[in-house]
């Protein structure tokens, strides 16, 4: 009667326990699933994913010059390399590289180096695009934030950055136009 009300015990205990665990399990799973739309809403939206590729006309870039274009909100370095730079990049021994990669694997045409200009250490933009910029000890690029040195192939040579500057997906549409992305 009334006294029993304060205590919920009895013969149905096992069945009740089973129901309790089952309901708790179903409820927990449901709550977890319900959180997914909230989490997923922070992932890139359809319009962000659809953002078109960038086309770049290479014709105006003279040998030894660089340009920076924007692709997906990030700077992309495009350098028209000189003969010496290409040679320098190709004569390096793998053992001298923290992140070994052949220069041939980083370019589609030797004179055109295309890479994402974001330091692989903590995301700063390295210097070296302008003629007046410091280019670091390996005459490529130099990140002023924490002193990472990149060579003429954009490979990390010295400093805290763990990997080479990444090469984005790109293709030559004609001899002088590329499409990034």
């Amino acid at each position, binding site marked *: 009667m*009334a006294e029993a009300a*304060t205590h*919920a015990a009895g013969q149905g205990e096992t069945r009740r326990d089973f129901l309790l665990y089952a309901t708790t399990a179903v409820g927990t799973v449901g709550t977890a699933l319900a959180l997914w739309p*909230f989490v*997923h*809403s922070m992932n890139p*939206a*359809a319009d*962000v994913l659809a953002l078109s590729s960038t086309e770049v006309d290479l014709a105006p870039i003279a040998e030894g010059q660089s340009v920076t274009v924007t692709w997906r909100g990030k700077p992309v370095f495009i350098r028209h390399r000189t003969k010496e730079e290409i040679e320098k990049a190709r004569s390096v021994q793998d053992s001298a590289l923290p992140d070994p990669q052949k220069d041939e694997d980083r370019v589609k045409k030797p004179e055109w180096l295309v890479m994402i200009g974001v330091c692989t250490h903590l995301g700063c933009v390295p210097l070296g695009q302008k003629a007046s910029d410091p280019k670091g000890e390996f005459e490529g690029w130099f990140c002023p934030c924490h002193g990472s040195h990149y060579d003429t192939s954009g490979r990390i040579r010295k400093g805290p950055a763990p990997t080479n500057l990444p090469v984005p997906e790109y293709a030559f549409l004609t001899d002088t136009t590329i499409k990034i992305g």
Partner: protein
Amino acid sequence: MSGEFNNKTIKWVDDRLPIFTMLKHSAVDYPTPKNLSYWWNFGSLAGFVLVIMILSGIFLAMNYTANTSMAFESVERIMRDVNYGWLLRYLHANGGSMFFIVVYIHMFRGMYYGSYKGPRELLWWLGLLIMVAMMATAFMGYVLPWGQMSFWGATVITNLFSAIPLVGDYIVTWLWGGFSVDNPTLNRFFALHYLLPFVLFALVFLHLVALHAVKSNNPLGIDPKGPQDTIPFHPYFTIKDLYGMGVFMMVYLAFVFWAPDFFGEPDNYIPANPMVTPAHIVPEWYFLPFYAILRAVPDKLGGVIMMFGSIIVLFFLPWLDTSKVKSGRFRPLYKQFFWLFVIDCLVLGYIGAKPAEGAYVLIGQIATAYYFFHFLVLLPLIGKIEKTKPLPHSISAPVLKGGGIPAGATAKPMEKA
């Protein structure tokens, strides 16, 4: 105190920060009258909706742009491009309506069972403050999508303040941050719309503190006489509240998934245009009764005073109702007038949605007059002249002695409400 906890970590924390003791005290052991009906579910439901609103609102805010030239498109981008953005927005838009449905039912329940009477006056007041904060939040939230109804709703409602003598125009200009509803207005409404729910949260917390001090009312309106009249909150009311939330979610989500624009206005899918007013400006449904009261008075200041008065009068309810008996169940006369009052509120809501012309004006005026008549004349009077039914001796008494009311009060509470 924390000798109650066996788990070492919990005990360690609780000795330094007694959150587990507090939780146990207020959400586990809290002695609750055992005869609460399902009408008592709506309080926890309201808290649940508030959580859903804050959660969906935060994620919406991550994608919303509070600028007149981008607000409408940013909302449509949420609907079209953001992953599950449509779900977030429809949850939030319909959640607003659900919030008011739940809170209004919660309030009518309080009125029927006299839950505002001593010692629960401050509990009632805090509840009213929550309602006022909700109204402000809802109003400003409705402006954010920057559709036609957003813009004109904002214009009309802010213009209410121009009725204030002498300083009215200055206040309206100050509210707008300009000479019409425009970008500064949208920006500040967004800032406040984001802030107020947290104020609401604090008010809800105080509401609970007050509740746990004076304890829950119950359908009989009499105080528990001892432990035989109460049961611990957990597991009895945790499971009952959770079950109620399940039922509620099905109703709520039915709108979200199959009729998401049911409570909305087509005009709000037209971008705001300060040059063209829609043919019928109607506030959201939950403001309609107050809107009807506003329009019932053919004087600008008078209408505004009446509208605010209709809310202020609720604050005096604990003293306007002179009856010693709380529950409407033992008040045969009050019970009748309670339902008449509910119907009056519905009529006001109906009139609020109608154009102010012809018979609607007269009906609106009568309904408005009755609204105040109910509070200012009927309630004080009924308490004096009413012959109430005898109260049971205790919550358990009717069961034990087969007293004035049918048995099984807790087993099938819905049938007794």
